[in-house]
């Protein structure tokens, strides 16, 4: 049986309760995973059931909800299934399984690491555009659903600047208005750039080109650190000016 969730934690924990005793259970929030001939059922979130599951899981590992939090942020289609297998193992072993050499633990760890690693990367790769009002706007398309998890970092370093982190793929934005931060749906944004924005971008492009040592090309290494899919929102790759100067 495939238990289909709405992607929320509450719904996942409800589904977990049903799927738990079912040998061939799959939990998914994505219908694309449906295999032919497999029965599926939509699970409605049930606060009481979710709470019960959560309490039971926490009794074995007080940190496991933190793991679940990051797992459900993953951009993988099978994130619920990875979380399900991991937490099922936890209920079998009745003690933290995070460090065990078990397939379910290893898969969960790798999935969590991808999410937290992308958060770290995005702290560096986000590029703000300065709008005429002085507010900062950054479009991004991260692999994982993390845009609101970037807010604390930028809020701590730019407390005097309102900013918008726009996940253009998921069409939502993490907004900081100078006082509070919140998540909002956002289809597309029209930004009026500040008078100097273009010149600062050109200076940045010039800097990027000048700091490179062309005799030492190591593109593979560069792309390993900064995958090409992240480039589209970075002005250093929009230079109209050819790299050779």
């Amino acid at each position, binding site marked *: 049986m495939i238990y289909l969730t709405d992607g929320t934690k509450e719904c996942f924990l409800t589904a977990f309760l049903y799927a738990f005793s079912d040998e061939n259970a799959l939990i998914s929030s994505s219908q694309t995973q449906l295999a032919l001939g497999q029965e599926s059922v939509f699970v409605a979130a049930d606060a009481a059931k979710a709470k019960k599951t959560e309490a039971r899981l926490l009794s074995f590992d007080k940190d496991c909800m933190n793991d679940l939090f990051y797992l459900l942020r993953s951009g993988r289609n099978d994130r619920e299934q990875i979380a399900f297998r991991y937490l099922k193992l936890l209920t079998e072993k009745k003690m933290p399984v995070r460090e065990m050499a078990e397939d379910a633990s290893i898969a969960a760890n790798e999935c969590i690491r991808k999410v937290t690693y992308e958060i770290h990367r995005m702290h560096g790769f986000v590029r*703000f555009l300065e709008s005429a009002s002085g507010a900062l706007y950054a479009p991004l398309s991260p692999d994982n659903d993390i845009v609101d998890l970037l807010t604390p970092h930028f809020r701590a*370093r730019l407390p005097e600047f309102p900013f918008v982190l726009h996940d253009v793929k998921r069409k939502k934005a993490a907004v900081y208005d100078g006082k509070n931060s919140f998540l909002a749906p956002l289809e597309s944004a029209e930004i009026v750039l500040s008078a100097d924005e273009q010149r600062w971008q050109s200076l940045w492009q010039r800097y990027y080109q000048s700091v490179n040592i062309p005799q030492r090309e190591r593109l593979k290494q*560069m792309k390993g650190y900064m995958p090409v899919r992240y480039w589209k929102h970075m002005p250093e790759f929009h230079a109209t000016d050819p790299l050779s100067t």
Partner: protein
Amino acid sequence: MIDEQRLKLLTEGAKYDVSCSSSGSKRKNTGGMGNGYAAGCCHSFTPDGRCISLLKILMSNDCVYNCKYCPNRLDADVPRVSATPEEVAELTIDFYKRNYIEGLFLSSAVEKSPNYTMEKLVRTVKLLRTQYRFHGYIHLKGIPRADEALIHEAAKYADRMSYNIELPSERSLKLLAPQKSKESLLLPMKKLAEDRAVFREEKRKGLFLPAGQTTQMIIGASPEKDSQIVRLTQSLYRSMGLKRVYYSSYVPVVHDSLLPDLPAGQLREHRLYQADWLLRFYGFTAEEIAPENENLPLDLDPKCAWALRNMQLFPVEVNHAPLELLLRVPGIGGRSAQKILQARKYTNLTFEHLQKMRVVLKRARHFITANGKFYGAKSETAVRGYLTAGENSENSRQLSLFSDTETALSALTGEL
């Protein structure tokens, strides 16, 4: 706003400085802009595979010194440009705000005199910290022969400072950088280390070089052997408390009868970074890594080379070996060692487990047993053969080093 032409020249003059790290500072935001990011943060990568973390520029490329290897030396015929403290501060702020950079790495040629130059650097950092209330990362280069008071002032505002010792021996320094001397580089480093220690001991208010000091030396412009370089590195870590020693393989931008015409191999530089990693994180000593008067082998990483000289210690059993020993196994790095320590608490690890945990066994299998089983080669010669396989010709070595992603990713740090 600084113009593109000067930005270009001042950047090109600074780009051979390897250090771009922004780690080690936890400076807080107390109003204004910016804060430290203790782990360091890369904002971009250039096609040469290097990270851009800091805005790395010269205040000026107009030099009264005449270091032989330097494109900005007095005798060189290059366009001379300088920036003002105001221009540099503004550039830093506007780049930082857009999240292009983690902070500033400001260096300079010796413009007019050491004190004149150092004063400009100090003015810039003060402007940033007090007027702009900037709390992001600032790395300042110390100018040799500038007054102690200026250096001390700079250290009150910077996160990190560095004096580059440039060449691995006094003799080479005299020959190639005649206006600098061992003392003009080492004494201020020592003084800063002492001042920092006093500052910490007395728990004074504010910060004093929270990210410490680093240095850099050029590899391959002078005849010193790797063994000498690794020993010097070790003593810099031990006696000066440096955070990092950087190596920069020599790139000939200048023709001089005293200098080689060919660039130093990047593989050599990479081996030195690997040796440095062994010193800093895996508990090796310089004497273990590089036998007297020798260079590091190019066809083996320094940990493999050490292990082959010490085969009597192997194989070690992964289920019992202490961390220090696991870290000495070729192919097992810090993260793998940690994973092994954790997982073996729950079960007796087999090779299958290790594989599932993605411990890379290509090299390690010759040096470990898992649950008593050994899957390595039988003889030392065979092991050596496996370890150097595919790395026979100079060409393939240089290529293979940077062509597979796994090694490419470790190439910057020397992580082993």
